[in-house]
């Protein structure tokens, strides 16, 4: 009976303790994130914006006739412009300037051409999810549509989805079509957990798709 009398008070104490702990953890996490921002800046990495483009801006976006203009993945609600990205000074494939845009690696094939068209997109930041945060869940047979600058629409069917440790990403697979005889479309984004002390995720996921008629 005496124990029963003190249980409520213990739970009240635990409750306040959780509140205090939560506040401490939250501020610690905020400090860590600010540190990550500093590290990224020191690396010369420009953080993507989290500002969404308007529908008007989306419609007004144009590219050359043979380049990818839009990407649509209806099954995971992806509708995004495709920017052209090259290599950073560290020989890394560059990324789009917004977590809601995607980037076509301009050393890869153009849509519909032999080889693989490589498009990357953000998984997200600590603030919000990116445009490609859901591609790891794509199933074989899912359709991904690329619309070119000239309006041509190309449908690609997902063949497989693979995840690689960051240190062992199969770049040869990323930059080549899954079927050498069919134009391919390879999507890449981050996955896994953030390496402690860095801002980088420890895995990459690649979606391999091929052109369908």
């Amino acid at each position: 009976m005496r124990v029963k009398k003190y249980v409520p008070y213990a739970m009240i104490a635990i409750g306040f303790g959780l509140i205090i702990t939560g506040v401490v953890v939250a501020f610690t996490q905020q400090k860590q994130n600010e540190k990550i921002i500093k590290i990224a800046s020191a690396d010369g990495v420009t953080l993507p914006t989290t500002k969404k483009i308007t529908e008007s801006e989306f419609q007004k976006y144009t590219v050359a006739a043979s380049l990818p203009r839009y990407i649509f993945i209806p099954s995971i609600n992806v509708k995004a412009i495709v920017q052209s990205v090259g290599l950073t000074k560290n020989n890394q494939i560059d990324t789009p300037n917004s977590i809601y845009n995607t980037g076509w690696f301009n050393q890869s094939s153009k849509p519909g051409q032999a080889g693989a068209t490589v498009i990357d997109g953000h998984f997200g930041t600590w603030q919000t999810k990116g445009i490609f945060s859901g591609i790891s869940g794509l199933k074989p047979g899912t359709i991904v549509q690329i619309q070119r600058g000239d309006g041509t629409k190309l449908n690609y069917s997902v063949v497989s989805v693979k995840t690689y440790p960051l240190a062992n990403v199969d770049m040869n697979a990323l930059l080549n079509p899954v079927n050498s005889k069919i134009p391919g479309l390879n999507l890449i984004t981050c996955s896994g957990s953030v390496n402690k002390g860095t801002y980088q995720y420890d895995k990459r996921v690649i979606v391999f798709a091929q052109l369908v008629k």
Partner: protein
Amino acid sequence: MKKIRPGKLLLTIVTSLGLISSLFFPSLAFAYSGYGLGTSHNPYLISSCQQLQEMDQDLAGYYILVSNIDCTGIGFTSIATVSSFSGTLDGQNHTILNLDVVTYGSMIARVNGATIKNINLKGGTSTCVSYCGGMVGDVTDSTLSNLHSSMTVSGGGIYSGGLVGSMRGSTSLSQSSFSGVFSGDAYSAGLVGAMWDAGTSVNDSFVTGTIHTVQSYHAVQSYVGTIVGGFFNGTINNTFSSATLDAGENYYDAGLVGDSQGTINNSFSATTINNQGGYANGLVGIDTSGTYSNNFIDAESNNTTNCGNNSGECTVVNNGNSDPGYFKNNTSNGPFSSWDFNAIWQQTSSYPILRNEADFVDPAAPNNGDANNDGIPDSYQANVANVQASDGTWSTMVVPADSGCVIRVLASIDRSTLPIDTGFTPLTQLDAFTLSCISTGDTFPVTMIFDKVYTNPIMRLYDGTLNAYHSFSSGSQPVFSTVTIGGIAKTKITYNINEGASIGSIGSQENWSGQPRGLSTQVIAPNTGFGVLKNNSAETIAEYVTAAFALLVVAEVIRRYTR
């Protein structure tokens, strides 16, 4: 009818077959220590003084030099002292350093129906007696071109020359020079001792250096010249001398030709004649029966205004030092209007030089010509080669000296002419190479040195058949390291190559060309995520507050029900 014994018949047949085979396959009886079959398609490759000496074993063979050769300290025995050399020796613009000929006096004593070209004898010594030249001795019906020598040729021989001893038949000498020290007696000269026949010719050649006259066989006359000593027949065109001639007394020595009985055209003498005796002339020592056209002498340096013993042999210039630069730094004075200054001669601030002399200058390689830093100039090593790419960077290739291979070709290929290597960013241009090896099937390490440090390099190879790049197979990855040579940090790569199958029809030899290869760095996967997706401050606080509130509610309920 005489009966032929079977044994004798068999012997005759075997001997005949052997003779016939030796005519068509002479190298069957000659096991050359280096690569080659002695044919124009597969010449013997000479990369050492010892291999040069082996020429004596196949006097009809086709030989080429694949590197400079250092004969320092090696006593060299003249080649072809009994039978004549009738093959081809092409130095490919390489230098033989410090050749000391210890017998007979000439590098190649007798030459008949041969071609000898593109060789520079730098330094070295020989002792000539007669019909002897530092490079070649008695030459008949042969073609000699682009031969140069700075040897010291002594001995006081007759019909001897610093470069060529005696020329006969239709032998021609062109675009050649002598710049050493020559001591000779009768009918001798710095360039050619004697020319005997109408078909002999010396064209576009010159002499510098020092010519000494030595009295040995002839008590009075020596007929020593700088270009030719005993010019009994033939033609001399477009030549000059700026040598120093130490003429003895009472010898028919001269600034260009000793005893002149042939035709001399478009030549000049700027020879400095010392110790002039009574008959030393500027152009010819004695004009026995020569013909002359457009020849000149510098009176001041020749120390005489006499062209020869007759008149009309030449035009005298710079009399009384009136025009000391007459033959210098121009292409129009004297005989120059008849000279080819586009393809053969080059104007300088002094006397003209032959353009082909530049071919013997060793290419500028890293670390003062010793790119692999082994203490030996790379130009003297056939197992080391350097190439400079279009962007100015150097790469060096080294195969082991005991591999039995020489590097025939190391060339740079501009990647812009090839397809893009997707996924890889090029760091260097491609290097293509060909090895000639005396064995097949061996595996040995190859070292490549690039003259800067590259970050995360990968070696990529280009397959011309597939028109695509690839990396080394997993079982033979190259080993990368950094090495400092000459104070500069460089990238060094070592990998194994496996010799292929035999290509020779005789023996086991191989010409092996590797796929063009160069350094690249691999494209890295993009960074498409920053920080942790959840756990921002607001979410963290909200979660904990929610949990805490739930606990408080539960606590209150328990408290009420446990009263």
